[in-house]
């Protein structure tokens, strides 16, 4: 059965209603037959009531009551569809400037990003913002969809112009794998089905690209890292001697017999067995959730990291990172936060703001030291105990953290370690 072997692809779409983002998502769901009849009925009725011509596909992405009333998206919404080849999770994020934080949130778990450009307008500030966030969050694949091609007479020349505009911008960022597709979300050209209006375009339609992006190599398979979530000690006769460490492999591959080190203590041991449910495994790789057992009885608890002896992360108390500020209260100087990095929690303080990024011009502001909602800054952070870090570029799982305000318990910042 194909269901059993298909991979999961998580992608993000950012943009405002005007870009045709909602129409594009509606089109993907509709043409891939992922919309149910009762949903379609509801949308048809609403379209009729609002006086739209035909079914307004954008209505499929409607969310909370306030959003419907104001016609805007407030928060990240997750949508699902599948084809025989893959299952897809869309993080649908609003694109207005004040919602940078939502774009960052949606991008944090994505393998791919769709960036929409209106063919009539070409690149706008928002395009740069989306691309910068995709590169900051190290999304491996970017698909630039030049939309509304029907409104520029399906012009190949216009498409090429926008592609070269985008290449100039992308060259300043770290975007790895960029695809360009001319589409009309409204008419359906090159979304699921190949366009008959643009025979000059030799590439694949959007859905086919999403189905075939090579994502297996996106996960770091070299640096073995395992953050302990909880210790498993059954209180039963049958499993009296069992003591295992439950967690999810962050990256790399573990096998029984591997020489490992437990950090931060530095104790050395060997993996005696790897279990999941009632099975013993020959190996565990990211992102598998398993239980590791060690040959020696050493002190291991939540927040510790098990790594291979010959490949260890850096223990650091002084961390330099890019952060995105997520809270409407600005950062106060010398405030103490809780920092959550893998399963390890410490106290932390922002010691210095190196610069603030203007994400519309991509210029660094060295003088502005105020951090407010949606700001992206390079900062120096000091923690009470060392964190076991890798750079975010090399390892998303061990290179990311969040800051929590102890006074409100709110998540106030997302960080990517440099």
């Amino acid at each position, binding site marked *: 059965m194909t269901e059993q072997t298909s991979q*999961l692809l998580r992608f993000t779409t950012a943009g405002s209603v005007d870009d045709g983002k909602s129409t594009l998502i509606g089109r993907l769901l509709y043409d891939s037959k992922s919309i149910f009849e009762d949903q379609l009925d509801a949308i048809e009725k609403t379209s009729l009531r609002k006086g739209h011509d035909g079914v307004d596909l954008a209505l499929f992405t409607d969310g909370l009551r306030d959003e419907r009333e104001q016609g805007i998206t407030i928060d990240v919404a*997750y949508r699902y569809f599948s084809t025989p080849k893959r299952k897809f999770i869309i993080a649908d994020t609003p694109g207005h400037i004040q919602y940078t934080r939502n774009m960052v*949130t949606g991008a944090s*778990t994505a393998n791919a990003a769709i960036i929409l450009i209106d063919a009539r307008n070409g690149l706008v500030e928002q395009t740069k913002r989306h691309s910068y966030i995709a590169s900051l969050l190290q999304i491996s694949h970017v698909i630039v969809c030049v939309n509304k091609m029907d409104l520029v007479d399906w012009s190949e020349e216009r498409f090429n112009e926008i592609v070269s505009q985008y290449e100039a911008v992308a060259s300043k960022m770290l975007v790895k794998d960029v695809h360009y597709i001319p589409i009309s979300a409204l008419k359906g050209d090159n979304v699921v089905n190949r366009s008959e209006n643009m025979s000059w375009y030799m590439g694949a339609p959007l859905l086919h690209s999403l189905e075939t992006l090579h994502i297996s190599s996106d996960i770091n398979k070299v640096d073995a890292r395992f953050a302990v*979530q909880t210790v498993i000690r059954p209180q*039963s006769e049958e499993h009296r001697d069992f003591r295992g460490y439950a967690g999810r492999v962050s990256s790399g591959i573990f096998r029984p017999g591997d020489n490992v080190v437990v950090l931060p203590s530095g104790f050395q041991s060997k993996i005696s067995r790897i279990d999941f449910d009632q099975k013993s495994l020959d190996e565990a790789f990211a992102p598998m959730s398993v239980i590791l057992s060690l040959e020696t009885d050493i002190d291991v608890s939540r927040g510790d990291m098990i790594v291979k002896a010959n490949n260890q992360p850096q223990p650091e108390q002084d961390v330099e990172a890019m952060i995105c500020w997520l809270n409407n209260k600005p950062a106060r100087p010398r405030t103490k936060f*809780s920092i959550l*990095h893998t399963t390890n929690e410490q106290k932390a303080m922002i010691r210095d703001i190196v610069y603030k990024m203007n994400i519309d011009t991509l210029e660094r502001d060295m003088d502005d030291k105020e951090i407010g909602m949606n700001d992206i800054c390079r900062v120096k952070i000091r923690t009470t105990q060392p964190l076991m870090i890798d750079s975010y570029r090399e390892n998303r799982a061990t290179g990311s953290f969040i800051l929590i305000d102890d006074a409100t318990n709110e*998540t106030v910042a*997302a960080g990517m370690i440099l």
Partner: protein
Amino acid sequence: MNKYYLNHLEELESEAIFVLREVAANFQNPVILFSGGKDSIVVTHLAKKAFYPAKIPFSLLHVDTGHNFPETIEFRDNLVASLGVNLLVGSVQKSIDDGRVAEERGKNATRNSLQITTLLDTIEEERIDCAIGGARRDEEKARAKERFFSHRDDFGQWDPKNQRPELWNLFNAKHFEGEHFRVFPISNWTEMDVWGYILRENIAIPSLYYAHERKVLWRNNSWIPKSEYLQIDDNEEIVTKKIRFRTLGDITITGGIESDADTLEKIVAEVAAMRETERGNRADDKRSESAMEDRKRQGYF
């Protein structure tokens, strides 16, 4: 050669297990909200796998409307016995008897929204700091915005416009005294994924999900089962049909569909070809465009 990637069900399973273990590590008194429906059964199965060979470190909490399918209660009791876990029951009937809530009136009356009070009272009485639910984001538009770790204030309310951002797999479980969390490990699963997983793992589910003969009447576009709690109008006719249920809730509002699917394989094939959402047969969601959002704000599952 070995493949070093997971298929989508394996990845969803691993994600859910990670979430369940984060709950165990972060909370003092977590429970699984257990309705006897397939989603809460899958969550319970995942919890069993997450901690094996240890037992599930959560109690099961059933919010009992009193309007149950007898099959559901029998299933629940057998499962609790086989897992060796603690069962808590919050009784809507008791909330009514205590005057905490008033029964709705009329033909379409249900105890669905009354569950909110019973649930919140039980959470307070039992000092529960985390209630794990089987809600999925694909079910409904308000649920599409839900977090894995969803904060509830000390009134048990959800504030959808002021949710904590959730990045990577870093879950902020911090809360003050009296507040609690709702955690949804299978947020990213679709109905098809749930059925695919039940088939793959051969998970036992109540017989109600399989096609069977039952006395029903046609109301609100679905087959409502005859029960002692159902008010029947003169013009409504009781017939016997071969039906099955796609979701299970209060017996008075859960509609069945005509079906011959009497094995898991047939159910999966039927769901794959289905052209209506599963909640299309739930009267509780049909009351208004924002029926689910409104109930969720108050503290619904």
